[in-house]
C-alpha cells in the first residue's frame, strides 16, 4: 500500500490560532474546555490503528483559543473522522468501533472561552464557515486521491452545518452538527466571534477508513491509474482474497490474467471520473439495451464509494491494441465464480463488468 508522509496529512494542524484584536477581561468562575488539541490525523489508520501513533482520537477533538488574558473561540468536534454521505448503494459505511455504521455527521461544540482559569463566556455570537482543501492533491487533500481541481469550474462540496451562526446562550456552549457531502477530503470549520475574541478553526477528515490499495497479484493486473486519480483501486481488505481467487480460477481455465480497474479512491467517497466533484455532468451517460441514452446522476461511477465495488475489464488487448471482448465462457466463469466466492453479484457498468462486494 502506498503511504504518504504524515506531514502531508491534514498538515495544517488542527487548531489554527490567529491572534486577532485585543484582550478581553475574564469573567470569574468560568472554565475552559479540557480536551486534546493539535493532533495530526491519518484517517487511513482508523479505526484499526487508532491509538497506535496514527493520531485517530476517539474523544472530542479541537481546541480553545482562550489563553492568558485573551478570550478566544473554542471549537470541538465529536470525532476526527467521519464518512462521506451516500455510501448506501456502495455497500455502506464500515462499522464504527463504538458500534453501528461509521457516521457521516458529527456533533460540533462552540464556545467563547476566557483565558487563564476562566471558562465559557455566555451569550456570545459565533459565525461559522466551511472550507474544503482543493489544491489538486498537493496539500492536505493529498491522501484522498483527488489530484485535480473541479472541471469546468465545479466547486468542491463542503457539506453542511446545521447552523451557520450560533449564540452560546447562558450556558456558554452552542451545540450544532456538521454533515459531510459525498466527497472525501479534509474539512475545516472556521469560527469567529466579535472582535477582540481570537477566532479558531478545527480541521477533520471526511473519508472511508480502512481501505487498502490493491496491488497486482500473481494472476491479475491493476489498471486505470490516471493522473487525476492515481490510486484508483482501494478496497476493503477482506475483498482481496476473493479477487485473487477469481483470477486464479480464470488463469487456470483460460491461461490469462484478469485486469482489475477502478474500485474506490484511497479514502472512498464519490469517485468523480470526470473531475466534476459531486455535480451532474452531461458527458456521463449510458445507453440502455433499447438504445435510450440516459444520464448518470451525479456524474459517472454511480457507486465505487466504499471499497466494495471494483471494475473488471472484459476486453482483451494485445498491448494497447483491442483484440476481442470476453467470450461467453469467460464471462460466465467470472460471474459464477465470483458468486461462489463472495455470495455477491456481478453487474454491467458501461463496457465492463462490475464486481459487487455488498
Amino acid at each position, binding site marked *: 500500500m502506498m503511504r504518504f508522509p504524515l506531514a502531508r496529512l491534514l498538515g495544517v494542524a488542527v487548531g489554527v490560532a490567529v491572534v486577532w484584536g485585543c484582550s478581553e477581561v475574564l469573567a470569574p468562575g468560568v472554565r475552559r474546555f479540557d480536551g486534546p488539541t493539535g493532533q495530526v490525523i491519518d484517517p487511513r489508520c482508523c479505526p484499526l490503528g487508532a491509538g497506535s501513533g496514527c493520531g485517530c482520537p476517539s474523544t472530542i477533538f479541537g481546541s480553545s483559543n482562550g489563553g492568558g488574558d485573551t478570550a478566544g473561540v473554542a471549537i470541538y468536534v465529536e470525532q476526527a473522522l467521519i464518512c462521506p454521505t451516500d455510501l448506501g448503494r456502495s455497500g455502506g459505511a464500515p462499522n464504527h468501533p463504538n458500534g453501528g455504521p461509521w457516521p457521516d455527521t458529527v456533533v460540533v461544540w462552540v464556545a467563547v472561552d476566557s483565558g487563564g482559569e476562566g471558562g465559557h463566556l455566555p451569550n456570545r455570537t459565533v459565525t461559522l464557515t466551511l472550507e474544503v482543501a482543493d489544491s489538486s492533491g498537493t496539500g492536505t487533500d493529498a491522501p484522498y486521491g483527488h489530484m485535480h481541481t473541479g472541471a469546468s469550474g465545479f466547486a468542491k462540496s463542503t457539506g453542511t452545518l446545521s447552523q451557520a451562526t450560533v449564540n452560546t446562550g447562558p450556558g456558554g456552549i452552542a451545540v450544532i452538527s456538521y454533515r459531510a457531502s459525498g466527497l472525501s477530503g479534509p474539512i475545516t470549520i472556521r469560527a469567529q466571534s466579535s472582535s477582540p475574541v481570537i477566532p479558531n478553526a478545527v480541521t477533520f477528515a471526511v473519508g472511508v477508513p480502512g481501505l487498502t490499495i490493491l496491488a497486482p497479484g500473481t494472476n491479475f493486473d491493476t489498471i486505470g491509474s490516471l493522473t487525476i486519480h492515481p490510486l484508483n483501486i482501494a478496497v476493503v481488505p477482506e475483498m482481496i482474497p476473493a479477487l485473487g481467487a477469481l483470477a486464479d480460477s480464470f488463469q487456470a481455465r483460460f491461461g490469462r490474467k484478469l485486469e482489475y*480497474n477502478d474500485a474506490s479512491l484511497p479514502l472512498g467517497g464519490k469517485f468523480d471520473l470526470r473531475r466534476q466533484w459531486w455535480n451532474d455532468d452531461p458527458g456521463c451517460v449510458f445507453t440502455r439495451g433499447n438504445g435510450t441514452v440516459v444520464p448518470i446522476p451525479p456524474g459517472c461511477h454511480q457507486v465505487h464509494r466504499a471499497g466494495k465495488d471494483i471494475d473488471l475489464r472484459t476486453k482483451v488487448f494485445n498491448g494497447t491494441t483491442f483484440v476481442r471482448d470476453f467470450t461467453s465462457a469467460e464471462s460466465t466463469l467470472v460471474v459464477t465464480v465470483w458468486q461462489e466466492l463472495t455470495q455477491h453479484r456481478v453487474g454491467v457498468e458501461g*463496457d465492463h463488468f462490475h464486481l459487487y462486494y455488498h
Partner: protein
Amino acid sequence: MSKIGLTVSLFYGVSGLSAQGAPGTNLTVDVSVSGVARSQDTVVVSYSVFNQGASAERLLALTLEAPSPPIQIIAPLPGSSWHLASQYGGRPVVRWGVLGDSILRPGFPAQTVSFKASGVLGIADAHVSGFALPVVEEDTLPSGDPLVFNSVQIKAVGVDPLPPGYTAASLTTRLDSLRSDACSLTWVTSASLCNTLHSYLMAQPANLTQFNADLATNHTTGGSVNDNAYWLLKANADYIISISPPPVNTALINLSYVCGNKFKVRNLNTVAVPLTWNVVNGSETGSVTVPAKSQGGEPGSVFITTIEKRTLRLYYNGQLIATVANGNKPPC
C-alpha cells in the same frame, strides 16, 4: 483506456427493462432425477436438466444445497463447457455452472448431470440461476446473495447424510415423511395413491415390496408418479430393504424333548430368533435367543430346562409356535 462506458453489450445478457423479474429469475428449468445408483453407503444421483423454451434467459448455474457434501460432481463432455463447484460462500453445495451459451439456452436439448455423495436421498433446496446481469447504473435491487435475489428457488432430490443411530424402522418413518412431502409437492398427483403408499409404510412389518411395486406401476408417461418421486421413494425403500434383517419363518423353528426336563430348540432361519416360553399348568416362564443356522447349514440350537415336569410352550413375537410334552425320560 476508455474510462467511460457509453454502450452496454447485449452479449452479456444484460437485464433490460422488458425483463419480468430480477435478472437471473426469468427462466423455468426442469430438474428431474433420471437415475440413481447405490454402492454401499454412497449414492450417485443423475438429473435431466431442461431449460424450457419459454424462458427468457439461458442457464447460468444449477446449485443444489448439499447437507451431505459431494464426493464427485459429473457433467457431460466437453469439460470446457462446465464449471463445477462443491462450495458456495463456504458451504457445501453441488453446483453445475454452464460456461458459454451453446447449451441449456431456452428450448435447447436437456443435459444430464450427476453427483456422488454419502447418504440417502432426500428433498433439497435448489437454485436455478439465469444468465442476466444487472446494469449498475439502474440497479436498485437490494444487495444480497445472488442465490436468493437472482435465482429461482425450487425443490429437488438431493442427498442427506444417514441419520445418527438409524434403524430400518426409523428410516421407514423418514420415508413416510418424504412420501408426504412428495405428495405436497405434487410429485405424486394421486391422493389415493398417496394414502395407499402411506398404508404400506404403516403396516407391521412395512410392506416395502408392494410400496415399490405401486410406485413402478404409476411411474409412467403421464402417470401420477413423476421421476423425482419415483426415484426418491424407491431408492429409500430399496435401502431400507437392504439393511432390514430377513423375515423369520417360524416353520423353520423346531422344538423337541430331550430327557428329564430338558428341551431343545433348533433354528434353520438365517437370522437369530428371540423366543419366549412357559409351561402348561405352571408358573415358569423364560426367554431364549436361538442362533441363526451356520454357514454350513447346521441349525442353530439352544436348550431349555424346566424345574417342573410339565409340557413346554414356545412363542415368537407372542404367538405360540410349538407345544411339546415332557417325555418322562430320566434326567440326562
